């Protein structure tokens, strides 16, 4: 099985370690994984702004680049949801390349949980951790149960993290409220977005957590910006980093 790594644009440029952790993790699990050259972005910023015409060529490029692989794995729920649920309008219903990419693009936790079905990991993480559920992971990919629906689903992010030894779970009171990032929303509605982010951070801090983990780095980028501005006693880590055995920064500094 050939697996292509899809690294969203902002991860590539600003959070390379999340991508490296994803790669190392998959390699350690024996996956034959490559990073196709020439990839950029899934087109989500344009699509979410409503600029369909600007998104279309980017989407087509994406499918062209990734269609040769058996599976495509992405350490971001939001970008995965973009490909799986919002690409339809750019392709014909019976486009074989598109249908292949659409059905074979997975978010990282989803891939580990459903495709690889991993049952153990030799990794320690003896820290207090709370999960920030990303809205797109939750409500578009259904990676877990969301509080509005009375449907019980497996929480794939937590299940995967539960394979790590030593995590002490902390839970924010609002289990899955939006952090306020929302892509261009964060700039468009800067005041409301920041207020949402501050509330989110406060809820996680109050839970006693010292590591705020998420499967979406975009939410974390926004929350981290607030944490650093407010010097809040918590740090963010991507799930891939925890699974790959990285330590929280505060441990190194201590």
């Amino acid at each position, binding site marked *: 099985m050939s697996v292509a790594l899809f690294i969203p*644009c902002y*991860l*590539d*440029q*600003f959070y*390379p*370690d999340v*991508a*490296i952790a994803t*790669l190392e993790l998959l390699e350690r699990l024996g996956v034959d994984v*490559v*990073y196709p*050259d*020439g990839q*950029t*972005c899934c*087109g989500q*910023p*344009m*699509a*979410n*702004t*409503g*600029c*369909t015409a*600007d*998104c279309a060529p*980017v989407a087509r*490029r994406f499918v062209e680049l990734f269609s040769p692989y058996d599976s495509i794995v992405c350490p971001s729920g939001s970008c995965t949801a973009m490909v799986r649920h919002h690409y339809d309008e750019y392709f014909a219903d019976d486009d074989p390349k598109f249908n292949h990419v659409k059905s074979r693009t997975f978010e990282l936790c989803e891939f580990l949980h459903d495709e690889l079905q991993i049952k153990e990991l030799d990794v320690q993480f003896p820290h207090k951790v709370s999960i920030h559920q990303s*809205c*797109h992971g*939750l*409500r*578009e990919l259904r990676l877990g149960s969301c*509080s*509005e629906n*009375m449907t019980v689903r497996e929480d794939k992010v937590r299940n995967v993290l539960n394979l790590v030894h030593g995590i002490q779970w902390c839970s924010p009171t*609002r289990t899955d*409220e*939006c952090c*306020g990032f*929302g892509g*261009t*929303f964060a*700039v*468009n*509605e*800067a*005041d*409301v977005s*920041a*207020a*949402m*982010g*501050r*509330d989110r951070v406060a809820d996680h801090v109050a839970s006693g957590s010292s590591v705020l983990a998420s499967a979406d780095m975009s939410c974390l980028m926004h929350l*981290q*910006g607030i944490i*650093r*501005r407010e010097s809040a006693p918590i740090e963010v880590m991507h799930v891939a980093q925890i699974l790959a055995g990285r330590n929280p920064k505060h441990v190194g500094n201590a």
Partner: protein
Amino acid sequence: MKSLPIVDHPTKARPFVADTERFHWHDQALWFVRSKRDKQAGSVPEWEHLRSLASQIKTETIANLGDYLVEFERNATALGATVHWAADAAEHNEIVLKILRDHETLRIVKSKSMLTEECGLNHFLEDNGIEVVDTDLGERIVQLRKETPSHIVLPAIHIRKEEVGDTFHEHLGTDEGASDPQYLTEAARQHLRDKFLAGEVGITGVNFAIAETGGLVVCTNEGNADLGVSLPRVHIACMGIEKLVPRFQDLSVFIRLLARSATGQPITTYTSHFHGPRDPNSELHIVLVDNGRSRLRNSNEFREALHCIRCGACMNTCPVYRRSGGHSYSATVPGPIGSVLSPTRDSSRYKSLPYACSLCGSCSDVCPVKIPLHHQLLAWRKELVGENLLPYSKRISMKAASILFRSPRLFSMAGWMGRKSLKILPHWATHNRLNTWTIARELPEPPRESFRHWYAENRKR
């Protein structure tokens, strides 16, 4: 008609969200309602099934709306009601005024109705010399303060009890500085009692109308609708044409969903059925209002918005609504459903509303009739771009992004420059008011190299 100001949600939200104490209190009050709703929804094992049923019934109703309306009119008329048809708000108001004039009425009592709010009925009647008393407590508070409701179920949710005390002190003569809810409610009760006794015509909204029987259902928690129409001889019921359900038995689905979704109660305190006028000496007038609904029905993209039963759950759950307040939407119906509906009336005036959303999708999952609200908001954005209503600056930046993402070389170069400049530039140059991101947040610390660069170095094949 004088041209209306463009609604700019971020600007209108700013003062609300800047008042930290108020927005937290507003957020928590609504979150409390949302949590109650979760408990109630969770206590019904077939909750998700009910939502699907409700959505199917609505789809069927809207598809055959013309037939059901005719059936409703026939059956309501047979019960002795008079049915009026209004194409728009102006016609609705004229019809109501004519009925009032026919009965030489100077005073009306009105129970909660977002439709009359949508039609601007209060102002219209007052301009015509008629006293209008809103009898829902929240609406009365808002009315006394000369404001508009900020929520469709909890019209005065933006006002604190201390402020209600001030308003009542001024208008009803309660003690200065009083803020005890019990005391204030009692004062309002006495005040409204007099108004009920003096009312000559009662106006109500309609929660559901049943085609099969010609009957109406009005749900309230205060019993004010019942009181408002029990004393006067004339009852005018104003309803949007989408309030119809085909069969009597369909009600069971919606009644179970409505109160649970709205306030987290198993059922509203009063669920009143009106089948024709009360007695031979009374009159029941039903005004069926289109006001843009047929147009919405013709839209493949937004038709499902007509399913809305006005429970307000999407507002209670919306993290943006909770922190920006209902008035920031400058529309009769605020929140997610309001942001879908308002642009259908005037896309250029309400163009900022579809962007007042982080696309979290909580509204779609909470909606008892399964309107895909956040997908509709996304669809609106496309629509607005198609109508050339997106600001030039945004259009240009999206064009630029598209070009960038089509070329890996350009993309790498831009990324390199971005990281470099972040490293070199002093903090004040990157963190200032010109960069909206950095008003409340720090930018990420730029890493030494990009992943693609790392990969090329470390995983050469």
